[in-house]
């Protein structure tokens, strides 16, 4: 059973259960970071951030900036798939650059132009200065900019929050028990300016395009992998 009530307090699976968000997390104006692992992780991260951003205002266009080598390795964006995440028929602007520096420049230009409300960048190595500039530009425009990272960051970052997203076995399909249903992701808020943190299993409702929390004991239950359990024991 899936309880999809946004009013319910979430079931944080992290050790620090004292800080819990009121409902499914959303993205705010400013710079956010989404850390993922592996090829399917990139898709999960994109799925999470686009559905989370879909809840916010969408006055402008969606812009994606990535180096060409990233697009070749990770796959190119398919608008037919993006539309399924609740972006409607908003135009997508895809900027395929040669270097990461150019991608960062394109992101900043997009934010400063006042036409882009959500910018997604596939940039692995961004300096503190570059992230700070992005954050300032995004907040001045009231837009959200998200950097997707597949490698552990070496530099400091000025991001407001850092999320870690991993795919999670999907919900049941209403008609076919063998098929996958609504996508689910395991989302951890690792770092945040205001000190909040938490971990959720989120599901995307394919009809209303909203993110909702998956009840702890529902369906699969919260199935902590060994690694997570270890991490909990260490931090606890």
């Amino acid at each position, binding site marked *: 059973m899936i309880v999809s009530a946004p009013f319910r307090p979430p079931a944080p699976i992290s050790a620090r259960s004292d800080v819990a968000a009121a409902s499914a997390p959303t993205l705010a104006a400013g710079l956010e970071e989404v850390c993922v692992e592996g090829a*399917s992780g990139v898709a999960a991260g994109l799925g999470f951030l686009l559905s989370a951003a879909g809840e916010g205002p969408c006055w402008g266009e969606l812009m994606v900036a990535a180096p060409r080598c990233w697009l070749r390795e990770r796959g190119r964006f398919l608008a037919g798939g993006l539309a399924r995440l609740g972006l409607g028929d908003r135009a997508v602007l895809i900027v395929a650059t040669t270097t990461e520096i150019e991608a960062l420049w394109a992101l900043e230009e997009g934010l400063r132009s006042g036409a882009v409300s959500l910018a997604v960048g596939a940039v692995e190595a961004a300096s503190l200065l570059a992230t700070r500039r992005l954050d300032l530009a995004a907040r001045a425009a009231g837009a959200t900019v998200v950097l997707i990272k597949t490698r552990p960051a070496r530099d400091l970052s000025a991001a407001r929050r850092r999320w870690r997203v991993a795919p999670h076995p999907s919900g049941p399909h209403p008609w076919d028990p063998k098929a996958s249903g609504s996508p689910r992701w395991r989302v951890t808020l690792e770092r945040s300016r205001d000190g909040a943190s938490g971990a959720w299993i989120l599901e995307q409702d394919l009809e209303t395009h909203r993110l909702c929390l998956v009840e702890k004991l529902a369906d699969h239950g919260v199935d902590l992998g060994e690694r997570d359990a270890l991490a909990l024991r260490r931090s606890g």
Partner: protein
Amino acid sequence: MERGPRGLVLAALNPAAQALGLRLGQSHADACALAPSLKSEAVKPGQAQDALRHLALWAQRYGPLVALDEGPVGEGYCGLEGLWIETTGADHLFGGEAALLADLTARLARMGAVAQVGLAGTPGAAWALARFAPSNATIAPPGGEAGALASLPVEALRLSPAAVQLLGRFGVRRIGDLYALPRAGLARRFRGEAGMQVILRLDQALGRLPEPLVGEIAPTAYFAHRVFAEPILHTEGVAQWGARLVEELCAKLEGEGLGARRIVLTGFRTDGRTTWFSAALGMASRDPEHLIRLLRERGWARLEVGFGLDALRLSASVTEPLRLSQPSLSASPGLVPGAHGARLDAHSAAHMPRHGCAEQVRARRKGGDAQELDPETHRAMAALIDRLTARLGETAVLRPVWRESWTPERAEGLAPYAAAPSTSASPQPAAQPRPILLFTPPEPIDAVAELPDGAPARFTWRRAARRVTRASGPERLAPEWWRKPSARGRPAAVRDYYRLEDEDGGRYWVFREGLYGDEDHLPSWWMHGLFP
């Protein structure tokens, strides 16, 4: 003389040289042996064409449409270049056709150019009269082309040397000889390209077939030009003067109610060369700030200053009418600095939100989150596309485009944002969900299926083995047989697409190409995309 494959050859001759028996294409050494006092000069490539183009622009005083006749390239056409001037409806302004020709010849003679002219109802007949008529300035009466051409040699029909030789072999030397021959027999006898050319050129000259003329277009009229007493030696100087030229140009465009779609900055160097670069705009604009920014991002340094620039010219090579647009009423009047009526609107038409008005832009956005972009955002988007394209190149700024196809990688492609039609060709909703990331080309995987034509139970992709927990499919997509086979050399086969999920929750889109039971081609498995 020009550089040929075997040394220098003669490329053009004056009458005196022709009288000496020199001919075109003769080697320079032979010519010097014949006439030791020969004076020769090197021909620059394109020099004659440029001169002809200038002459064409000048000749627009005689008619609205002037076409160049440069002839086929590299076929010894030299010396036969010319111009076509469409004088229909314009000759009475000069006092009749004869007076027009006299005026044209006189003016050209004053410029030092000897011209042969002819006038007829069709371009082909005029061409023949100008070059082969016994007297200069021959005029064919309306409908009398056949009579006027009858005594001219067949070369006057603009035939290739092969066709002329062919006709000569049959004893046809005059155009009049061709009239007597039956057309069907003519076409049959002169089979092949040469024969068809004879019929075509004859029909064109006599007006039985139309021959449209393509006019030479006048250069842009919108430019700002500045000559300097002391040459500019640094890029900083180019930037400074370039900005002033932009303002001058924008003022000119505003007076005409136009906006630039493409601007070209040309520098005239002290050594007589020119250097230039251009910037294209996605949406017509005459906002100086935007144009300056665009040029700056293209890079002022693209002008090679060299030993200095004597003059700078900024021209709007492509212009479009720029409608005045009214800012929405909900926007407060202080949105644009300065306030006087239409002028204010004209400025805001090419305005992008600057830092000063970010507050108002945001206030307007909060009003509604309608999917439709408001015009202000639309303009900001066009400005953004311009800047990105100027710096990163046209192939870097892309948008999805949809085609009528059911091969997934074909159905949705990427096209340059500026070039793609702005009317949104909406995606055809596929019956089955589509992935968010697509691999083009698909990547091969090793898959093991429980049943020969079922979904895989395990697969290895990028050297990692994955166990499938859930699967749905197949979605069968037949190959589009009307297209050429793919580059892989094998005929396109049926694809069965499956959506798979592995133990970790990764969701994949794989397909099997080909069917079991086909002995020639074993089916193969491919990874094509990832679901969120």
